């Protein structure tokens, strides 16, 4: 149940690049993962062999393109254990969250209602809902965090007690703290207080890294992005219960999502097409399909096992550096593999620049989680995040770089 990282690494072209003569150490997969050759090849095959538009062509190229596109949908559905009719392709996870905000939240919530989200959400899973709240006057409530960066479920119980919470938006895994949230339990809390409440999960940081079953999770909506799971840029998906999609009004409208159009109205196509307006991301779907194939071949249980063991070593390594504070849970089994840390007295920007100068790529900033930053009393963190192509040999350069930053920026 383990895989061979050095061999796998060869499949990712950027990883063989050198920066100023130093090996590139990519520790920013939580922002965007590297893309393996199989994914590039799948896209290239489409462009060089079957290049055409999907769905309406009567010639062979168009049929091949349609098969690629719909085939990718089936693959992704199988990968997350969902019904293909509930897989809507979007350009990224952000669009998926907005789809839910426009087609469900904005059409169901109003004054007197409340929406529950958390203090650790990525802006993609927060702003679409607060923006809707501003327009429609419903209330937004935020589940606070415990000391160790978990959702405070007792506080959540209180927040839903008045029965007004009709919608929950929660991240599956935090992109800053790494926390794996108990989405099932939080859903139960919300639905116990309001059985008809809908649950939307931001799975952006979960699906690349661990086995996920949409059916078992019991959510209504689940957002995914392709570029963090070995796929190309420009594609994501909303996974949803197809019956729910059936009832919903569309979000983006235009070609391909309609059944008929008259001068003053339209009837909608079947789901999931009703939610896919215009020419879709055909090459990107082909690429994402190939990424899903590779992840399936690696086996998501093995991926998770590799990452737990690597995160264990990462946490040890970071703890060994003086003046380094780790944000988020310290137990690797409770967390994903994005690890945020602070270096006392050195601004994250400077930590990042020093690491960058040594070929080590980490992310610094607020990671699109301003409410969380405020909650932690920070402006920014440095974050190192790993994936299938990382291994323990990537940890020494990280530690060396942090040590160098400490020395260089000592006052």
């Amino acid at each position, binding site marked *: 149940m383990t895989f061979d990282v050095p061999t796998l690494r060869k499949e990712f072209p950027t990883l063989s690049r050198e*920066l*100023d003569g130093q090996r590139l150490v990519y520790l920013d997969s939580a922002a965007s993962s590297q893309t393996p050759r199989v994914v590039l090849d799948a896209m290239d095959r489409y462009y060089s062999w079957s290049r055409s538009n999907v769905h309406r062509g009567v010639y062979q190229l168009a049929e091949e393109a349609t098969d690629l596109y719909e085939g990718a949908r089936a693959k992704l559905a199988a990968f997350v254990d969902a019904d293909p009719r509930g897989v809507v392709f979007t350009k990224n996870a952000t669009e998926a969250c907005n789809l839910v905000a426009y087609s469900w939240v904005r059409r169901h919530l109003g004054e007197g209602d409340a929406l529950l989200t958390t203090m650790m959400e990525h802006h993609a899973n927060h702003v679409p809902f607060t923006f809707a709240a501003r327009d429609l006057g419903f209330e937004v409530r935020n589940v606070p965090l415990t000391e160790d960066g978990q959702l405070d479920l007792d506080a959540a119980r209180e927040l839903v007690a008045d029965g007004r919470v009709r919608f929950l938006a929660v991240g599956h895994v935090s992109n800053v703290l790494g926390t794996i949230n108990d989405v099932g339990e939080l859903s139960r809390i919300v639905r116990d207080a309001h059985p008809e409440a809908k649950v939307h999960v931001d799975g952006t940081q979960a699906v690349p890294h661990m086995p996920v079953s949409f059916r078992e999770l019991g959510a209504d909506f689940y957002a995914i992005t392709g570029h963090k799971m070995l796929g190309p840029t420009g594609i994501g998906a909303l996974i949803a219960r197809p019956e729910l999609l059936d009832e919903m009004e569309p979000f983006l409208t235009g070609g391909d999502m309609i059944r008929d159009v008259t001068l003053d109205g339209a009837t909608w196509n079947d789901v999931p097409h009703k939610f896919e307006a215009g020419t879709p991301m055909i090459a990107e779907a082909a690429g994402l399909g190939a990424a899903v194939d590779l992840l399936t071949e690696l086996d998501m249980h093995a991926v998770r096992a590799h990452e737990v063991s690597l995160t264990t070593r990462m946490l040890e390594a970071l703890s060994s550096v003086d003046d380094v504070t780790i944000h988020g849970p310290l137990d690797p089994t409770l967390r994903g593999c994005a690890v945020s840390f602070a270096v006392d007295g050195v*601004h*994250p*920007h*400077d930590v990042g*620049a*020093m690491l*960058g*100068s040594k070929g080590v790529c980490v992310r*610094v*900033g*607020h990671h699109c989680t301003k409410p969380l*930053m405020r909650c932690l009393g*920070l*402006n*920014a963190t440095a974050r190192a995040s790993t994936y299938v192509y990382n291994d323990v040999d990537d940890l020494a350069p990280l530690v060396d770089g942090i040590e160098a930053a400490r020395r*260089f*920026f000592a*006052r």
Partner: protein
Amino acid sequence: MSMEDLYQEIILDHYRKPHNRAPSLEDEDVHVHHSNPLCGDEMDLRLRVVDDRVDAVVFDGEGCSISQASASAMSDVVTGRDLKDALDLAEDFRKMMHGDEPARADDLGDGIAFQGVAKFPVRVKCALLGWMAVRDAIESYEQGASAHTVTHEE
């Protein structure tokens, strides 16, 4: 991307011992708050004007070495200058950050040490933070009443 290109000794000096860094300024005329949303830097800048000259300027806040050092160098440069002149230097610095040769290299003082930052686009905003804050402070002063507070985001 080598550290030496970016972090010249003179920059590190300003970073380690910033000039005119303070949380308040007696008889301040303008207080502006600037933040760089991308890196989460925040800066409070206070300006006192006497006879259309920068009588004093102090800054405070959170930021990386580049933003702190640049604000420190800026404060040295603009203090004592008349407002128009200070605005002109801020513009010269801004252009330098976008790759132009500075027209008034000598007048930019230690600010000139930041020329290399132009090669690092993500850090340009850091180096500009203090300069843009002082520009806004002066412009606010010129437009506004004798004393007022402006919260301005880049």
